[in-house]
């Protein structure tokens, strides 16, 4: 592990990403300290540009503090991003592992299912799901998870297919290890690194999807999110550009951070991929 840490510290992109992420998470966690007031509260005169009257990012149409929205929004975006990714990975790993290990008809069925889900345009599906189960935290997280698990499943399956042919797995079988033991303790640990890499990228995608949904007005109206802020600011774009510009930047930075982080992970975890960049 220490070896892992050392190698990660070595990856520049990884470190930049990590630092940015940590900052964002801190910001999200300390939201209530930085802006104890409700971000929906009308705190000042409407449509103040940034850096006026002590409003770092100005105020919106109803005089709400944009900065407060950004900070509290970070919480939602990250939360939704992580929650949905965790769900997606859970499903994906199980499906992929089962399909990959048992192959045969089980594999067929599961892969058809996966392909099916990959065929439906994901964002459209997300929209429909959220709209139909009426926008709420749960429905959004579920929808994002539903559209993002297939790649994981495919990845894990591929890993399993190759790993189960490896001698050490055969050795375990010869040793009479149980299936679960082989899947969980022999194969899975070896299959995980690419999954972890993909996971970090998935969080990023999830955040993008969420912002897209909120932008279309399919967010949970009880919580302030960046996508919502852009959507709300959109109609004001020529009077108060900052209303949509600033939240957009926030999303951009977050997604960028996650991508960089993922890059770093993959440099460390699957050298096979990143080798080509060196030699």
């Amino acid at each position: 592990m220490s070896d892992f840490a050392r190698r990660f510290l070595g990856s520049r992109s990884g470190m930049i990403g990590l630092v940015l992420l940590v900052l964002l998470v801190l910001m999200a966690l300390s939201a209530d300290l930085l802006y104890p007031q409700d971000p929906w509260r009308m705190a000042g005169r409407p449509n103040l540009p940034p850096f006026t009257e002590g409003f770092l990012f100005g105020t919106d149409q109803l005089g709400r503090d944009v900065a407060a929205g950004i900070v509290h929004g970070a919480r939602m975006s990250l939360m939704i991003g992580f929650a949905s990714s965790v769900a997606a990975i859970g499903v994906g790993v199980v499906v992929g592992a089962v399909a990959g290990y048992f192959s045969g008809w089980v594999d067929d069925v599961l892969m058809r299912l996966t392909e099916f889900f990959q065929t439906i345009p994901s964002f459209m599906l997300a929209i429909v799901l959220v709209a139909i189960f009426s926008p709420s935290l749960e429905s959004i997280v579920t929808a994002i998870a539903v559209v993002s698990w297939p790649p994981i499943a495919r990845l894990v399956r591929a890993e399993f297919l190759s790993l189960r042919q490896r001698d050490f797995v055969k050795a375990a079988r010869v040793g009479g290890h149980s299936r679960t033991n082989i899947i969980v303790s022999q194969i899975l640990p070896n299959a995980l690194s690419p999954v972890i890499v993909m996971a970090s990228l998935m969080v990023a995608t999830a955040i993008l999807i969420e912002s897209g949904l909120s932008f279309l007005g399919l967010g949970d109206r009880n919580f302030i999110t960046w996508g919502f802020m852009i959507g709300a600011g959109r109609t004001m774009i020529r009077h108060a550009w900052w209303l949509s510009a600033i939240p957009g930047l926030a999303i951009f930075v977050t997604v960028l951070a996650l991508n960089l982080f993922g890059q770093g992970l993959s440099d460390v975890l699957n050298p096979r991929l990143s080798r080509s960049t060196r030699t």
Partner: protein
Amino acid sequence: MKRLLSAAILSVATAIAAQAQDDPQTGGTLNLVVQPEPPTVMLGINRLGPVSYVGSKIYEGLVTFAPDMTPLPKLAKSWDISDDGLTYTFHLQEGVKWHDGEPFTSADVVYSFGEYLPEAFSRTRGVMDRVEEISAPDDRTVVFKLKEPYAAFMIIFDSTGGTIVPKHIYEGTDIFKNPANETPIGTGPFKFDEWSKGRYIHLVRNDEYWQDGRPYLDELYFHIIPDANSRAIAFEQGQVDVLRGGDVENIEVNRLGDMEGVDVTTDGWEFYDPLAIINVNTRHEPLDNPKVRQAISYALDREFMIDAVFGGFGKPAYGPMTERTPYYDPEVLTDYSFDMEKAKALMEESGVEAEGGVYATLDLMPLPYGETWQRHGEYIRQQLKEIGIETNVVSVDVAGWVERTTTGKFDITTNFTYLLGDPAMGVGQTYRSNNQLNRGTAANVDGYENPKVDDLFAEGARTLDPGKRQEIYSEAQKIISADAPVIWSHQMEYPTVYRSKIHDLITTAPGLNEGFADVWIEQ
């Protein structure tokens, strides 16, 4: 507020300018925006905003209305009403032709009100139930006999409520599926030419129009621009000449209004007379408690709301009518102007138990008609919080909203109604106890039940003498305003932005839903 005045001044200014102008000039193209893209322009089968906007140029009613709601001739050049108020006799214009060349006769009117409209439009059917018989003594005369007097009867004869359709095309067909709906045939000043879906609807001058020299314009383009920003830019860049209220955000209106050679008016809504309300479901606690409802009403800073959310367009409303509504009586209304202290006090008096400063947690369902209403909802949410009512925002799509509202599955929802020019028409439906669920979104969805109010509205509809009606409606307004069965948000004002070179754009109560026969462009 300031906004408003300037708008008013502007409109006056243009009126004067219009008079000052010498004779109208003929010719020219008028570029308009219709949004959302209408499902059809066959006004008979559908009266959604966009359909009426376009359809009203193609189809006509027997009458139209002056801003003060007095009827003006249209397809009927004159009419007389018997003293008992039971017989209405309409005398039709001479030499009116349908766009397909067929002559227009009383038979068309009889068919339209006798068969077509009751099938197509429930509001008109509602009124037609009051009619004993419709007869056509001759080609040019139509007689309606009522079962009992109905003061608002004339209201249904405008082009949207009383669309006159060609009998020779629709009789005996499925009026909804009739292919002719694709190529509408009316008597209006403009004829349907082309509909390039997703892009524009093109109407051309009806050279056969019954009114000599009219219309002045050669053609109308209704452009379909699905996005508010895009519409604003289109107007700026001169691609369109007129923006209706709602086409662009009101804040944009102010900006565009300040442009060179552009005018803004809020006239032309006297007929529809829209009123923004907040429905509170009186079947649910604590909303069954009048004090709570009053508290909510006091908690709203309508001035701020109108300025911040509606770009300054609108006027606070404290009762069931607006200043535009006949028989409106500000004297009798409870003054609900912003008073947070009073609101909080009322909550305490109300006797509702509060836990940790929270009296109740309710669902708040904002009207899903775009961002403005979302802001409106967000504002209300904050104010309710102030007086100790927590809300959980339920966001639904149009279908969901309609469904929940009309079936009473809500605590609080924002909404608006058209008062339609006479209390007997649009006002009563929101408060009469016999008009509650599954009767549309403007019905008494809050479940308000007050026999006295019921009687007053029944009587008001029956009574013809204006003086008496005033008394009746004043009392009704007094009671309702005090009970606050709904929270009145504001009298809505839809600003119309247009280029000064366009004259006589809005002269009547239906405003832009007029036929445009008199509109002309200064070359």
